[in-house]
């Protein structure tokens, strides 16, 4: 046990947590924005997968990883708008739209990969390796421990991800658009009655979601790995949904729950080499999610019950008077 502790309490282990949590954080922030607008987008997984492929492809065609990231964002927006179009215009259930995009991400990515490269497995042989620049922040990396974990040799998108936590918080709570997004999510009829364009807001939230998912995908294929390979997203889109649910859609909460998932995954990766039950450790984040959203649901459940009880008491008093 002390053996495990000593190897967990290293800066390289902490850095690996960061590396694992970044794509989850991007996607969970994406899910938070749509969730706040009352749009249930479960197509994150598929969007990430296709964006990951497009990121490498665009980088390969143009020779610039920046173009790769932009291409991934553009595709993310396109896929999110597709979900919106079918859900709002054709009235397909939005959960089914999400499942459709996930299926597209699984099969369509392989098909596209084949059309582009002739391989059904990965992009490595044709497109080579692509990696976003790694950055060591000059002064900050000198801070003991924290500098080594956060500010040394991390992908540029890692910093963007943490910056996005702040940006999404500002967007949701300090801008008129954020108020509209939350109003639409809270009660779209009420928002509609005061002149907010409900569908415009929902589409806007989907566009923002697409941008963040695009970055998640680009991180996967150009930082986490240096290529796209079949099945590389491996449920991260669903984990992000869970992180969103557990963090209650609040940017900071989402960051903390993504951190928890990163920790559990990194721990499971480490435990694989020992005689501890690795698969059970891997299941931990999912169990924690169920517990987390249940505890949250119980607390809101009790709150509404208390408010209701108080109201009833008042009414009884009134009636007695």
């Amino acid at each position: 046990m002390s053996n495990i502790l000593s190897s967990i309490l290293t800066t390289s282990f902490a850095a690996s947590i960061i590396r694992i949590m970044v794509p989850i954080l991007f996607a969970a922030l994406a899910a938070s924005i749509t969730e706040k607008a009352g749009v249930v987008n479960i197509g994150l997984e598929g969007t990430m997968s296709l964006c990951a492929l497009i990121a490498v492809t665009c980088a390969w065609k143009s020779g610039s990883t920046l173009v790769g990231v932009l291409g991934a964002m553009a595709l993310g927006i396109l896929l999110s708008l597709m979900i919106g179009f079918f859900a709002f215009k054709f009235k397909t259930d939005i959960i089914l739209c999400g499942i459709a995009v996930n299926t597209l991400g699984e099969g369509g990515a392989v098909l596209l990969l084949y059309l582009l490269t002739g391989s059904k497995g990965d992009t490595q042989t044709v497109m080579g390796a692509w990696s976003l620049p790694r950055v060591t922040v000059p002064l900050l990396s000198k801070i003991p421990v924290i500098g080594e974990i956060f500010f040394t040799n991390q992908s540029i998108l890692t910093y963007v991800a943490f910056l996005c936590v702040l940006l999404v918080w500002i967007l949701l709570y300090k801008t008129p658009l954020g108020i509209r997004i939350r109003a639409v999510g809270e009660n779209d009829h009420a928002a509609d009655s005061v002149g907010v364009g409900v569908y415009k807001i929902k589409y806007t939230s989907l566009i923002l979601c697409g941008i963040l998912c695009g970055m998640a995908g680009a991180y996967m294929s150009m930082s986490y790995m240096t290529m796209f390979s079949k099945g590389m997203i491996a449920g991260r889109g669903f984990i992000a949904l869970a992180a969103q649910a557990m963090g209650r859609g609040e940017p900071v909460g989402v960051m903390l729950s993504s951190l928890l998932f990163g920790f559990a995954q990194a721990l499971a990766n480490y435990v694989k080499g020992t005689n501890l039950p690795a698969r059970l450790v891997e299941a931990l984040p999912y169990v924690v999610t169920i517990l987390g959203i249940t505890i949250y649901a119980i607390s809101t459940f009790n709150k509404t019950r208390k408010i209701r009880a108080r109201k009833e008491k008042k009414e009884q008093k009134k009636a007695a008077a």
Partner: protein
Amino acid sequence: MKSKSLRLFGYVRGAAALLVAFLVALVLIFLSSDEPLVALRYMLLGPAASWSKICRVLAYMIPITFTGLATCIMFSANQFNLAGEGCISAGGFVGALVAIYCPMPTVIHQIVCILAGALIGGLIMLIPGFLKTRWGVSEMVVSLMLNYIILDVTMQFLTQNFADRSQGATMTFPYKSSAIIPKIFAGEQVSYGILIAIAMAVLCWFFLYRTKWGYAIRMVGINKEFSQYSGIKVGAIVILCQVVGGILAGMGGVVTQLGYFQQYRWTALTGYGWDGITLAILAANNPIFIPIAAFFVAWLQYGCELMNTWTTVPVEMMDLISVVIFLFFAADQFLSGFRQKLVVRETKKELAEKAAQQSKKGGEAHV
């Protein structure tokens, strides 16, 4: 109220959705193959090439029929539970353990295995059902998480406790011969499980459309608040439909395992749960249509596999067909302009008829 032409419209819309799916597939096949017509022939007619190929289609129908039925029942009550995917693995795994370690006379052995799988499926689905009913926790997130938990737990037990170490791949010891569900035709892959699947489809139809509980499930799906108001115990129904879904998926896992495999060797999620959703959409949540939809999907799936083997088109073509089905088949407003015209025409005709009748009557009165 629902006139004949409107019902006809439903079929037309379904056919149009399938046509779109077919066209998308066609375009992609032409893009990805040098000999598109050969590829197309494999996809559409490949499975008809021989009797044993048709039997394979029937064998592939079995798991997806079960997950399709499970999805039908849960979606009928508007419960977006997606754990059919996990339950089929969990049921299959537990059924497999009973088949390996509990020697019993044949027939009884199969029944006990299937019941064990059904039981574990139902128990698992109690979790999202109970959490939804008691505290309003989203069944969708819980069920998605359960899929991964189930996979991790079964893999832990499989690799640590029940693996046959003499084999190269991860798998259990072989099933006792008394537990195997026999094949219908010697040497072909389809087992008597197909009959169980079809029987379950009929049973589910009866449950959903001819019993009190089925009625309550459908009512909760149509209008939860109204159901509550009219005295239906909504909470109990929400749990019930998910548990029934789990039972069906669990059974499906066992029937597939004992009818198709010699030992348990699912080391990843199977994807049958998602196929089940496609089926439920195709069958419009009516269990009786599930076997037909299953045959259609199984046919296309196997056709795509054959196309993958013999031409350059990847098997993932099937996913794209599913995507289009997902998006268009369940789209309420797809071709809605056409429906609007239909309704207007019908109403005009009705009004004209009424007017004609009235003027006739009026004329008679005058005379």
